[in-house]
């Protein structure tokens, strides 16, 4: 067993995929990595031989402690780079693709310094901007008495509290009143809660049938 040999980009992608999506079957895993099943099998055998994977039975592998370490390192690279590109104004998808390529070559030190520099906010610390979107209109656009099926709650601002109050995708709410200052009172799960305009703008929904 050669422990010191650096992992190839492909092998790192494999380890990362196993960390992020445990329980994928082989076909889905191969599709996710864009590999032929035979290539995947060879890759797995190689990684297992280097002690980064452990056989799990049924021809499947799971991460060994060493493999886990590598996978976490690469995932951290990915997140930091993607955050960086998004802050530069790239679309999230493009930022992700770019991060996928660069995550293997970049050094841990560069990532640590970049992360310090960026202080990538966790989603709930981001203030919200914009309203409406592909998931329907925001609560600001509904009138009193209208029933709204929640399709999405943007992960920003006070969304944790909103979710805990029962404002979750799939829930049906009723706009009870519109207050001064464009605030909205909705009825959800038998309780009335008031949302200031910033928060109401983050809750998207479609009219209930």
């Amino acid at each position, binding site marked *: 067993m050669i422990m010191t040999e650096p992992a190839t980009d492909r092998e790192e992608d494999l380890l990362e995929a196993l960390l992020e999506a445990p329980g994928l079957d082989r076909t889905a895993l191969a599709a996710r990595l864009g590999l032929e099943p035979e290539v995947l099998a060879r890759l797995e055998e190689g990684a297992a031989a280097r002690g980064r994977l452990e056989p799990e039975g049924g021809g499947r592998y799971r991460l060994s402690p060493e493999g886990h370490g590598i996978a976490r390192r690469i995932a951290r690279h990915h997140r930091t780079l993607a955050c960086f590109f998004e802050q530069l104004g790239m679309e999230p998808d493009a930022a992700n693709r770019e991060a996928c390529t660069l995550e293997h070559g970049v050094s841990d030190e560069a990532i640590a310094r970049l992360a310090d520099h960026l202080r990538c906010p966790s989603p709930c610390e981001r203030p919200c901007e914009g309203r409406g979107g592909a998931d329907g209109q925001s609560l600001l656009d509904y009138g009193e008495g209208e029933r709204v099926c929640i399709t999405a709650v943007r992960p920003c601002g006070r969304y944790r*509290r909103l979710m805990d109050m029962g404002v*979750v995708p799939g829930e049906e709410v009723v706009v009870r009143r519109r207050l001064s*200052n464009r605030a909205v009172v909705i009825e959800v799960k038998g309780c009335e809660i008031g949302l*200031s305009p910033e928060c109401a703008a983050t809750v998207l929904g479609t009219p209930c049938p």
Partner: protein
Amino acid sequence: MPLTIALVGNPGVGKSLIFNHLTGVGVEVGNYPGSSVDLLSGRSCFQRERIEVLDLPGVYSLDDGAETEALVRRVIADDAVTALVAVLDATRLERNLYLLLQVAEYGRPMVAVVNMVDEAARRGIAVDTERLSALLGIPVLATSAATGQGIDRILPTAVLEARAATVEVPYDHHVEAAVHSLARSFGVDRRTALQALQGLGDDADLLDAAGAIGEEIGRRHRMSAGQIITTNRHNHAGVIADEVVRSAGVGVGAALDRLLTRTVPGVPILVGVLMAMLLVVFLVGGVLEEYIVRAFEFGLLGPIAALEIHPLAKEVLRAVGLALQSGFGIAFPYIFTFYILLALLEDSGYMSRAAFLADRAMHRMGLHGEAIIPLVIGFGCNVPALMGTRLLATRRERIIAAFLITMVPCSARTVVISGIVASFVSLAAAFSIYMVVLVLIVLTGLVLSRVAPGPQFGMVLEMPQLRRPRPDMVLLKSWLRIKEFLYIAMPLLLVSSVVLGLFGYYGAIAAFQAAFAPVSEGLLGLPDYASTALLFGILRKEMAFETLVVLAGTASLDTVMTGVQLYIFAIVSTLFVPCISTVAVLRRELGSRVAALITLYTVGLGIGIGALIHLAAG
């Protein structure tokens, strides 16, 4: 080790009322080790065994990063707690079950209490507690804390029958797979893995791995792992509630609510309500205080003065007597009156409407509408108001609110304003002090929001239905608040009064007076002894007034000072340096630096405004 039970539940489910029923006297406000969030604890007895009862702060969820939720999580996980009592509101069972499902995941012995069954019955809602008990796997009691129904069964059930809940939320299969993988790789339990997926926990490696998995789940569902977990829990709570709740659905009219929540007439009504509150406190407090002060004069201070003992002992006794006199002279007439009015507003459900009405104005000061609640509480006493800032979302907002709260004229400052300005100058002049302070508060807020700009996160508040306040609830709430004041402020009052007495006895005050005379005479145009009175005001605000009377040698202050001097004295002592209890709480809540900054700011502001008025008045 005594048996300990902890009450956990959403805000406003009647936990405090149940706690009061269970414990009666001997309630302590204390801190849980390693946390600055207050925890009420009290004692009770069952089968000759002492039982410690903890009243945890009301929360909507355990999976929130805030300090209060962290405290609740720690107490729930603490093995020293023998049993948990989950208090549910029968009228909002589904949302309350959401919290219970989270608590159940800790696997601790627990019972559930479905409270407010009387209120639910009035609204045509019935809860099948037997079925609920079967579904959750724990004993379930039906109670009404307002009438006392079923309360006597809580302790026996919690002590003898509490057990770990068997209910389990069926999570999305990707979440289950992730939990499984994390639990295996890191050797943690299901609950820890679930929390890690939501970014909660101390283990950096676990959080890192969970973050990576969570992000992947998020990409596939177009929903974060936290959102999926939350949704799954809500759905399961919904399934349970559907099985146990029968509702006839009685609607409630909303005409009054409409009136109160529109800008017009909502905002004028809000301003009117607040002004009326202050006026009532001012008038009622002034009358009642006189009686109490006189009673103490005859019953305590007179006899002490007549004692034939060593002068030092006499000085200490006199200081204690004075502290009691002024403590009760403020606590009951002013603070208690204020708290009753405040509880009336809260119990009627008006405060959350007020928060939305004030939202836009508060934005300009870098705050949200909900900050109006601690600001209003500040008129009673700044100490609980500062503790109330915990409900604000960010540290930045808490600091801005703290700055503003320490400028709000509390009851003790009301005593100074009414005792000096209203009595010797005029009622209009007294009110003008409030106006000046109010303008300064607004200006401070405007400046602070510029100096420390930050994002506006918005506000999510429960809107309880408007209802006629219940007298027993109002009295209970006011009583709990005043009790807190007596426990926190009274000891400080006694100690600082004795220290002051000793200072006076050993002549330290005269030295200070000489040193501070230039500021007092030159800058503010006040007699030199006024500076000593101002100094005493740091220890206890209303002492500024009393000391002034003592040092001036007459209760008829208008014979020794001009109207302008009295006005300047009152406004400076109102603005400058929050009292020592407030500074102590500031330090505890926001740290020494912020406490020092606020103190310095108020000193500068007080002396600056005083000097300006002196200049303007020539």
